[in-house]
């Protein structure tokens, strides 16, 4: 078990579901309800992931958890990176908000809410950010059509 996963396990036993390293990037999958504990452990623990680079999501309609959150953390002194992953759930997707740890997560989580419809419990200002306030639907979901017109040979690709 890597140091990163060990630190999460020490702070919140049972939180780590899986971990692996691929293409030189460390990924730790944690349970969706433990993401805040995991983030806090990595920020305050010896690995010193002080900066939250990015929060984003990808939609997998065929997976039971459907919305796969990805949190990219970085240690600003060594450049070491870790990716935390968590599934938000297919019906009523939601995870805990990490804004209490990094206030900068505010807009990143609003963007995920706007584009994917994932709710963040404990977020202070969860409303749309890039799309108009009264926009219907969540554009980055895979079942949201892109629109546009069919052109010749569309199906050839």
């Amino acid at each position, binding site marked *: 078990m890597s140091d990163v996963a060990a630190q999460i396990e020490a702070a919140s036993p049972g939180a780590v579901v899986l971990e692996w390293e*691929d*293409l*030189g*990037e460390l*990924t730790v999958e944690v349970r969706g309800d433990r993401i805040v504990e995991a983030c806090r452990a990595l920020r305050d623990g010896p690995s010193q992931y*002080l*900066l*939250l*680079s*990015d929060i*984003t999501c*990808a*939609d997998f309609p065929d997976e039971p958890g459907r919305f796969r959150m*990805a949190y*990219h953390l*970085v240690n*600003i*002194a*060594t*450049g070491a*990176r870790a*990716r935390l992953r968590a599934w938000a759930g297919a019906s009523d997707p939601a995870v805990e908000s990490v804004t209490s740890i*990094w*206030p*900068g*997560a*505010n*807009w*990143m989580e609003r*963007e995920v809410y706007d*584009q994917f419809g994932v709710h963040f419990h404990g977020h*202070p*200002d*969860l*409303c*749309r*950010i*890039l*799309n*108009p*306030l*009264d*926009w219907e639907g969540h*554009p*980055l979901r895979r079942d*949201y059509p*892109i629109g546009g017109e069919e052109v010749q040979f569309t199906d*050839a*690709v």
Partner: protein
Amino acid sequence: MTMGTAGPRSGNFPIAAESREAREAAARDGRALTPTERIIAGVEARTPEEAIERTLTNEMLADARPGVRQPMLINLGPNHPSTHGVLRLIVELDGEVVREVTPVIGYLHTGIEKQCENKTWWQGITLVTRMDYLAPFANIKAYTMSVERLLQMEVPARAQWIRVLLAEMNRLASHLVWLGTSGLELGAMSVFFYCYRERDEMLDLFEMVSGERMNHRYFQVGGCSDDLPPGFIERVRAFTEEMPARIDDYEALLTGNPIWKDRMVGIGVLPAEQLLALGVTGPTLRAAGVPYDLRKVAPYSGYQHFEFDVPTATEGDCYARYLVRVREMRESLRIIRQVLDGMPEGPVIADDRKVVLPPREELAYSMEALIHHFKLVSEGFTVPAGEAYVAIESPRGEMGCYAVSDGGPRPYRIHMRDPSFVNLQATAPLCKGGYLADLIAIVATLDPVMGGVDR
């Protein structure tokens, strides 16, 4: 027009329309208005009639309790010359003092991440270059590097050096636009003309190498689309010899200028811990004393071979951000000179026919080349399933690209972590308690590019 009846025209009041939108959005989710929605909706103003009623109450309140000042809500933007594009700031003012700032973004949202999912991997390059339109080379570099990592592809040395060269020239060009527009916003008009003169020379050089003045599509997956044109190196060298004196000129106009210093020194300060917690990167973070520069901390594209310093300052105010960026321009020139001196020979793109287009001349006599060309253009190349997050140092901070592949010819998901988007969150904490005029200086030195913020 009679007030008090909700006639058909009442829906035309912008504030009523926005208020309705916000309330509909909240009702759909079955929740109360969030702070941002309340501000956008004009706080409690539900209908034009209610808004007028509320204003009357406020005036009566002020009459009843003299000395009690009512806050004033004003919209700065989305079309305002000082907000660097279509940034809208709803400012709550107490006289000249800023009590609260709520940035409203999304006016340039074009769904680039969604469009990428419907294009092949190589077509995505054309889209991402349009995000942060002042740093197109940084956008493409992050994108192509993440695809290259998924493909586990080696990029030839010459291509790496060309990428470093253009990325640093891009940093210089971007900082020139920043310096020129910031000068304009704070009343130093001649700096704008000087900076744009040099920036135009940069655009000519970019046009020479890529064929386009902006939105270049020069970096490809695996390297660069073509070698440097003849005469390019000499022209860049002449530019680097001229440029230090030009930067001296800007500094002579600004660095010791009492008006410039009055507008900047001690304005917009946040401690480094708070900036880090907000996710702020780039010159803004370095001006507060944190030497976080990905070119040094996690070198990529061979940055470890070049000698350069990471300029930092400790004050963390607008003036420190100005000084850091000006010194970064000099460091970029230093890197450019080293690249020109040591540019290795060799191919400019990897030799992988399953990913890279064959050389143009081969199409005339090689059937295989023609087939590869046709397949690559019509179908695109496939990328092994997996995910990669690659971050590079753009002129504004950490520019990241998170690419997810399902093994097909199109990206399953592309997410661009744009530094402008994250840095812009610092606007409200930086501006609170300052004067309205300081807000202009603060937004100027944060240097957001709205194309990158909204994507």
